[in-house]
């Protein structure tokens, strides 16, 4: 059904999570939370395994996954990029940073580059308002950014 192939271990892991919650359909959200924290995202085969274990239609699982913005069906890149849209960053032009990241990476917010390297997200405040506007790339925090810096930063992560 899906291009994504789930490894046997990952499939087993998902089943174990379901069993830990006694395959209770009422625990669907908790199961999705734990699965996403283990696998990073919730692709279709994973949702089908959960539906099967819980004895509910895959549509129900899909409905919940798409309802809550926390859940994601796209894998994060190896280097996740987050642009802070908190008040301090926003008034100092974070929206323009975000636009530039979108342009340079050629992806939208919530998406991952086709090579699986970068993913782009927004967040609200990393506690570095003094350095606004701020973006995090991997584990590193970049402050006092200008849109013109973005291309250079992305280039730092060339293979």
């Amino acid at each position, binding site marked *: *059904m899906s291009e994504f192939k789930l490894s046997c271990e990952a499939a087993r892991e998902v089943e174990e999570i379901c069993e830990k919650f006694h395959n209770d359909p009422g625990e669907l959200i908790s199961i999705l939370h734990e699965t996403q924290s283990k696998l990073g995202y919730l692709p279709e085969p994973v949702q089908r395994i959960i539906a099967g274990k819980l004895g509910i*239609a895959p*549509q129900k699982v*899909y*409905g919940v996954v798409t*309802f809550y913005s926390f859940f994601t069906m796209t894998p994060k890149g190896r280097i996740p990029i987050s642009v802070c849209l908190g008040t301090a960053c926003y008034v100092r032009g974070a929206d323009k940073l975000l636009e530039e990241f979108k342009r340079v990476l050629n992806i939208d917010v919530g998406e991952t580059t086709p090579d699986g390297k970068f993913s782009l997200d927004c967040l609200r405040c990393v506690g570095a308002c003094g350095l606004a506007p701020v973006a995090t790339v991997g584990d590193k925090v970049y402050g006092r950014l200008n849109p013109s810096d973005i291309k250079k930063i992305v280039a730092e992560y060339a293979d």
Partner: protein
Amino acid sequence: MENMINLLIDKRPVSVPKGTTVLDAAASIGINIPALCHMDLKGTCVKSSPAACRICVVEIEGRRNLAPSCATMVTEGMVVSTNSARVVRARKTVAELILSDHPNDCLTCPKCNHCELQQLVTRFNIREMPYKGEQSERKKEVTAAITRNMDKCILCRRCESMCNNVQTVGVLGAVKRGFETTIAPTFDRMFSETDCTYCGQCVAVCPTGALTERDNTDRLLEDLNNPDKIVIAQPAPAVRVALGEEFGMKPGTIVTGKLAASLRALGFDYVFDTDFGADLTIMEEGAEILHRLKAFLGGDKSVKLPIMTSCCPAWVNFYEHNYPDLLEYPSSAKSPAQMFGAIAKTYWAQKMGIPREKLVVVSVMPCLAKKYECEREEFKVNGNPDVDYSISTRELARLIKRSNIDWNKLPDEDFDKPLGESSGAAAIFGATGGVMEAALRTVYEVYTGKTLPRIEFTEVRGLDGIKEAEIDLNGFKLKVCVAHTLGNARILMDKLRAGDLPYHVVEVMACPGGCIDGGGQPYHHGNVDIIKARAKAIYAEDSGKPIRKSHENPDIQKLYKEFLGEPLSERSHQLLHTHYFDKSIK
């Protein structure tokens, strides 16, 4: 009485049992509160009341907010107003807000004149669109059976209730949230990539034009006007007890004669009857029942029992998708419509000297899954289908109107011979329990060699979800079971999988009440009395027939004598039987 609740609705006293909704309490004294998302076919398992649309709000004394009457239970001393200025204003605003995210292209909408939203707009005297909002862009899709245009969806959730609670197919449901919410198949795929059975019950309950049938009327008009084609019709049993509704006739009016006349007036070269195919189905399926029973009674432990009916194409899809491990239980007999097609394009075509590619077989069905059934590869010979395509009861009504035929002036005519002759047993195929009853009439007489003392098997009639009966066959107790809706079918199939289904024969129909409430029938708009009236008419049609047992149909007897030989003969197997496929989604 202790459990009665007394209240005032629009200043009128009313006393109703505890647990009644304000909406139903009002209806009991003739106050018809408008509702949109709410649907309740009382006496069946069909119910959807998510209180999502707020069209049915009323004012209740002592409550700050307006209350949805469909989901508010009556309480002692309640004072309700259903038409105060505040209520009327709110109700109109709710409708206007729904319209702000609706295409409002009613003139060309396939649901025009049958749309419940359109009816409310007229009823609320809405003469302009005060709100202009962003329009949501949602998916459109045309499958073999169903057309989906979710821009017209008002999120009433009726289809979701049908697909999940009633049919347990679990394909349609809400995804995303807020303004982006849409009703979509699993993983936002196309219907064809899901477990959808094409039962069409989502279409039967959709209040707007979001879910409709795939329209084959233009294709049919072209064929009817093509001098190189011989076009023949076969209408299903359930069509003749519902078609009249489309022309303002009382539900339950039998219009068999006008149906034949209208098809002839449309230009069909021959007007035959699927009922002939139904009699043929009983011959083959009945023989298969007897064959398995005899083996079972002879001590053969490998016999698959219960044998299950296989007339209903949505039910076939359901077990191919969900019970691929149990495919040996259903009868291998094709549906009546497909049997008809196979015989028309061989026996009859040869008799008439018509080459297969010149012959167009069109079925008129209460059903949408039949459209898909026609497209199954195993029902084609060198790419040429046994039944070329299917139109629904509603499509036929539209064609009659479009072709300038005055319904009221149509005479009563007969079907053509030989594929138009049928018994009363075939007529009742359209109601839940009908196939079982028809099979029992033949199986009993063939097995016992005696004439049935009582031809009606009333214990398998009616709207109960699962019915059972025991029939004495010369001392052998034949246990039978009848289920309608796929949810009830699932209960039986789960028992079968667990090895605990103690019957010999089981009938399943996917739609509530059987084909009379199929996805292609005139819309019932939530009125269960319409379905009951159609069922009554089906049984009246049966009792009015001179021949009431399939094996006594003279043209069926002739077909076996001239062409097929015996039921379950090699030729019968080749033309009238099929096999099933594992269609589970891995």
